């Protein structure tokens, strides 16, 4: 048994990359995820519209911040703020009533908003705040704001977890298929000894890359359709927006995750390394993309990581299109970032393929012309 233990240690020591990942990775993940793992919503951006907006806004306390006051803004324009995420809640302050519109697509923020409204709208609390705001000797006669606002939760009226999670989970499934499974594709060829064969064949690195990605792309696309279809049928997830926009976002996202998988595969020496590297990219996406923990709750030092992860943008696109019906022109940012990430990963993967498959390119005199003459 001792001999076996020593042998395993020796093998592990040789595989320095695996050893480094085993030691460094848990520490990095603990620190990153520790700062990211927070359901606390400390700030809720609010927009107050309507004729009484200015006076109503005065009485909004933390966690409502920042509070934007726009008395002349229409309700429909205010809803656009909810749709594009600039506000989590819109207060429509009329002369006789107040209505609170909450973005239900952001589950934790919506729950925190509802709780905060309930706290602030308790008559005693509001009366106290009104009285404090008045000059001495004046009394509150008609404290309209003391009446609890009528709360309307948009996009996910029941605040159902499944409605919010299913669009994002579709992305998680694609990450698993795309990154994890595709990460084994090249390294498998390398270990079987057939990668060299491909390198010698008259196939360009681009041919090999696209050839590798295409089947996974197709399977993942079918998976996506099944997952979203099942989500809609079983969990009542709506599709308020355009299916074409959702498909566009999903295709871009797939392109990024598959390219990332192939890139990981091309830099890994064996399947164990490939899986470890893939997990290193999959786990942060699940935990930092806003799928589970709200982005607004993450520490700034960690939040920037979320903005370089493709799942962050897919979750935003899928939720916005499915739950809010957001049109394509309001999604140019996440779509653009996905396209950019796709361009970067596919360029890196192609470069890596070029190195793997054409190690001798440009270094020796090819006798192409002579071959033509000879043949």
């Amino acid at each position: 048994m001792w001999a076996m233990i020593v042998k395993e240690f020796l093998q592990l020591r040789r595989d320095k990359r695996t050893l480094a990942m085993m030691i460094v990775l848990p520490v990095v993940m603990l620190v990153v995820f520790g700062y990211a793992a927070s359901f606390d919503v400390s700030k809720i951006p609010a927009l107050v519209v309507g004729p009484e907006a200015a006076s109503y806004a005065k009485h909004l306390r933390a966690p409502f911040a920042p509070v934007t006051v726009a008395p002349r803004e229409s309700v429909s324009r205010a809803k656009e703020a909810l749709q594009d995420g600039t506000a989590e809640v819109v207060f429509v302050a009329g002369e006789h009533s107040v209505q609170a519109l909450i973005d239900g697509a952001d589950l934790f923020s919506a729950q925190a908003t509802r709780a905060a409204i309930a706290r602030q709208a308790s008559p005693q609390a509001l009366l106290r705040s009104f009285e404090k705001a008045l000059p001495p000797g004046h009394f509150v006669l008609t404290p309209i704001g003391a009446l609890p606002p009528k709360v309307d939760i948009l996009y996910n009226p029941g605040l159902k977890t499944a409605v919010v999670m299913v669009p994002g989970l579709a992305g998680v499934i694609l990450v698993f298929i795309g990154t994890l499974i595709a990460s084994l594709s090249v390294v498998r060829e390398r270990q079987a000894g057939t990668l060299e064969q491909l390198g010698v064949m008259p196939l360009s690195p681009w041919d090999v890359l696209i050839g590798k990605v295409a089947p996974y792309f197709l399977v993942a696309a079918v998976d996506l359709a099944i997952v979203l279809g099942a989500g809609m049928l079983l969990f009542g997830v709506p599709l308020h927006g355009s299916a074409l926009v959702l498909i566009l976002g999903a295709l871009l996202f797939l392109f990024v995750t598959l390219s990332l998988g192939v890139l990981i595969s091309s830099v890994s020496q064996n399947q164990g390394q490939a899986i470890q590297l893939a997990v290193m990219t999959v786990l942060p996406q699940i935990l930092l993309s806003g799928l589970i923990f709200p982005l607004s709750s993450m520490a700034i030092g960690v939040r920037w990581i979320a903005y370089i992860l493709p799942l962050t943008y897919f979750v935003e696109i899928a939720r916005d299109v499915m739950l809010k019906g957001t049109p394509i022109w309001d999604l140019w940012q996440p779509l653009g970032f996905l396209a950019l990430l796709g361009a970067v990963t596919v360029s890196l993967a192609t470069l890596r393929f070029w190195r793997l498959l054409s190690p001798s390119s440009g270094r020796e005199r090819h006798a192409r012309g002579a071959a033509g003459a000879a043949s």
Partner: protein
Amino acid sequence: MNWGVRSLTVRFGARCALRDVTFEAAPGEVRGVVGGDGAGKTTLVRALVGAIGHAQGEVRRPPAREIGYMPAGSGVFQDLSVDENLAFTAAAYGMPRAERDERATQLLERTGLLDARKRLGGELSGGMRQKLGVLLAMLHGPSLLVLDEPTTGVDPLSRADLWRLIAQAASEGAQVVLSTSYLDEAERTSQLLFLQAGRALASGTAADVVRAMPGRVRWAPERPPGDALERSWRRGASWRIWTPPGVSEERKDWEAVSPDLQDAVTVAALAHELQGAHQGGASQ
């Protein structure tokens, strides 16, 4: 045009895997790269087909479309069937379907793989897989066919089948280069290059290599004593002793033999080793 390498040096980091090696293929000929384990055979054929780069020298090879290459380990896709392996290779080389079907059937018949068309590459026996590897490499009728140890681990019958295939490729006009550690196979090649520790120690036809052997080889029934021991090797039940030119040592139980290729390459390797040892000793 003859494909090949000239003054080729290949380095892997600090290690020099090939040093100043020149080798040339020729149309209609099977030429061999011979040597023991770690001699640099695989490095040479990989550099020739462009699978690895090189530090110095020149590589002349046709475009990828005209190269057929079988890496060590057959290069067969294990999770594809024989037919699927053939179809992929043919497609990669842009062969029309009808031409592919005709040639594949003919080659499968010759190698006895016709009944195994539906079997996965990973399910084939070692010999069958090697045959399929050669078949894949020559399917598109390459002008340069490079085979890395195609017969290693293959039984004698399958080796004979493989050699028939290889000879067919040469007869079709291909320039065939194969690496082998078997000297009986090296004797079947028209020209050979003997490598030892990344250096070319002998080249030419088998007869040239034998003729160029310096000194004499003698036979002894028992292990030789003294200095001769470092210049001797066991062969069968007896011993061979190499006497370099200029060395005089006569014993009546040592008989002069007419050297063969095995003697010649062993002498080349011994001479190289002894020269290195003496140079090392002198420098110290």
